[in-house]
């Protein structure tokens, strides 16, 4: 697989934007189109793009987390969110409304369902990341970069 410097550079710039979009989808999900699943897919797609452009090394450089860590953390978070209400005398998976006054943003209202959705987000991101790294091209050879004349000795 040949590497394209242009694609790599563009994606390096675009990756944070895509991740922000995915987070936006996650947080907006309760009231607008989006949600943890869609957000996770966007984040996964962003990593897939990085992988196609720069190989597994590029993905490793952008995230410190192993896909399996994301998967496990996501399921753990979702399970804990589901279980916590049991200890406060409510039913499994019962969600509460939270609201807080934050500087700049003003009054922010959300529900504990957000934590659950974050779990979904992490699991989906982890899945996509795992699939693309498992099936992907692996590490690209440095020598594969659009060879500049005179580079080879």
């Amino acid at each position, binding site marked *: 697989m040949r590497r394209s410097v242009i694609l790599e550079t563009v994606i390096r710039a675009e990756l944070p934007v895509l991740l922000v979009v995915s987070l936006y989808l996650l947080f907006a999900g309760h009231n607008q189109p989006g949600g*943890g699943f*869609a957000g996770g897919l*966007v984040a996964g797609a962003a990593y897939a793009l990085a992988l196609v452009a720069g190989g597994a090394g590029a993905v490793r450089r952008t995230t410190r987390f192993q896909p*399996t860590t994301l998967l496990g953390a996501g399921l753990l978070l979702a399970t804990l969110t589901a279980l916590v209400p049991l200890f406060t005398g409510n039913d499994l998976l019962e*969600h509460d409304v939270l609201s807080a006054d934050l500087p700049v943003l003003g009054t922010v209202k959300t*529900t504990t369902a957000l934590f659950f959705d974050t779990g979904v987000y992490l*699991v989906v991101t982890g*899945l996509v990341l795992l699939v*693309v790294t498992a099936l992907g091209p692996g590490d690209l050879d440095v020598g594969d970069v659009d060879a500049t004349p005179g580079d080879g000795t």
Partner: protein
Amino acid sequence: MAAAVLVAARRPLGRARFAVAALAPAATAGWAVWLLATLDPGEAHTRRVEWVPGLDLTLGFRADGLAAVMALVIGAIGVLVCAYAASYFGSSPTAAKVAPLLVAFAGSMLGLVLSDDVLGLFVFWELTSVTSFLLIGTDDERPEARAAAQQAFLITGAGGLALLGGLVLLGQQTGEWTLQGIVAAAPSGGLVEAAAVLVLLGALTKSAQVPFHSWLPGAMAAPTPVSAYLHSATMVKAGVYLVARLSPGLAELGPWRPVVVGAGVASLLVGGWRALRQSDLKILLAMGTVSQLGLLMILFGVGTEEAWAAGVVLLVAHALFKAPLFMVVGIVDHATHTRDIRRLDRLGRRLPVLCGVGVLAASSMAGVPPLLGFIAKEEALAALGETGLSWGTALLVAVVAGSVLTVAYSGRFVFGAFGPAPDRGSAPGALVGPIVRDVHTPAASIVAVPAVLAGAGLLFGLLPVLVQPLVDAAVTWWGPDAHAPTLALWHGLKPALYWSLLVLTLGSLAIVARSAVERVQVDLPRLPGTQRGYERTVRGLLRGADRVTGVVQSGSLPTYLAVILVTMVVTVAVPLSGAVAVPEGLVLADSWGQLLVAAGVLGAALGAALALRRMTVVLLLGVVGYGVAALFMIQGAPDLAVTQLLVETLTVVAFVLVLRRMPERFAARQSVRRQLPRAALALAVGAVVFVFALSATVRTEPGVSEEYLQRSLPEAAGRNVVNVIVVDFRGLDTLGEISVVLVAALGISALSAAGRRGRGAGKAAGTGVDAAEEGGVA
């Protein structure tokens, strides 16, 4: 009361010592004595603990006389076993492993005998199987110990499954889920009979009855304290105990007596016969246990009040003589490093005290007066003489024969361990090793433990009044009017006395002529071994599983897909066939946009079916997916559309990544004959989905979506109803789905790792991606 269970179930971890471990059984024993002292006849302390209220599952505990007797045996023997184990293990690291397991076992066993709720009883039943498995496999570096543990677990576990089936069936037939209720209902009928047989299967496997006894000799791989506790005094009595619990209500059922008494007689005779040919002292005792448990089965299962009461006496007596015998063997093993009677010569002279203890316990086993074993045997013979059954005499004769064998193997034990070594010239297998000359003297503390137990057998024999309250308390389970016979050494010149004399005389003759008996045994053909049966069954199961896997998991992707799709067509089409409906006011399309997109989707699908390059197919499938997303968009479902778009994109990416490893084009076109079934299947799937979609839009009930739409904002504070459904209303579904995603992801990871080593795993990984993503979308 529940506290007693908790105390017993507490597991002293870390540097566990048997002194700590002994506290729990000591508490149990003390509690049991208090219970026996304070309990009015026929009464019981009960406690019900809600377990899963939603499923009506409760843990019902009931401490009555029988439970107290069992608890006393568990507690008292437990304390002494701990004391013995402390010396037996010394400071070896095994102690830390065994001590908590022993206590955990004692807790499970106590729970078992206190449970009134049958499902709770089953749980404790299985717990004892698990702890037994772990204890047999204590020496986990020896393959024989591991195999023995596995065999014990497989056999008792299979019996446990049968027991569960039987208990559930009984519960459903009677509507009673407690032992008390089932016995009071005294049910009958074909299903109840089947249930009884299943329950008995569980009881017979647990109590190592013929033909399921093969695991017990193997279980002797466990350390001796474990054998003394689990495999003679307590756990193997669980089956007998269950029979004792159920027999007042179920003994009149058709198959009950033939099964229980049949297995009991077979065990009594086979166990005794086998014990006579063992040269390993421990195996000899194990076979003797099979035999004694057989007698217990007969007594509890035959279904008369007197026999039942005699069973209780024998149960106590057996614990008091079999446990010390095992301990004696353990000490002999420590002192001489062998348990083989062909290598032990005149040990009685070197270790006179130990010899005395062994003789005392073995005499009780043989039923020699004035020991408790004699009283028990006497009661048993008396009760079996008066069963009033048509085959009662035959049964009595069989039990007398079994008792003769018991006397004979008791003698073999005593003379084998402490008497002169047998004439090695004629003994088969002269390769057993030299006679042991070097004997360590055991510590007094370790000999004291079996001495206490054997002494108790003598004391209770001389003063049967001490055992009387146990039997009186237990027998109330049989019925409110039931009375235990008065225990005594001398009942006068009754038939039972003559039977006892006959047994002792014949048995003594067999002991005197033991070398002749041995020769007869060697000459007779061996009985068919059930050990081989067990091995053959296990091997057959594994081979069968291999074959099934070979057929079901062919490894062909088209076959898997065909099976899945055919299943889908059939399961949807059959219920649908009666409910096909066409909604009113059906229009071809709402707008030109829809038509356009639909045309594009159709074209791409056709193209995908006809394309020859893999990459083309994938891209065209992507077009189909995007087209569907566009339709969602047009219909005003942005959430669905976004998700569909993303999933479609990632599916194409995953496909492309997989396709890099595969040939560019499909293999040469296949013949029409091979393609025809596939085309037919594809058309069928399409038709079913079409009709289903059409019919599904015709509602007869109001949809759930209205309700969700109304509840979404006020109840879940969310305006995006799709998301609210996913994370709140159907949150549990989502939780399940992400768990599936996680498992699928791990599968992909493993497959691709394997694929990197070998070849051809990429294909399977590709389907995993689809399955996982579909699971997520659903």
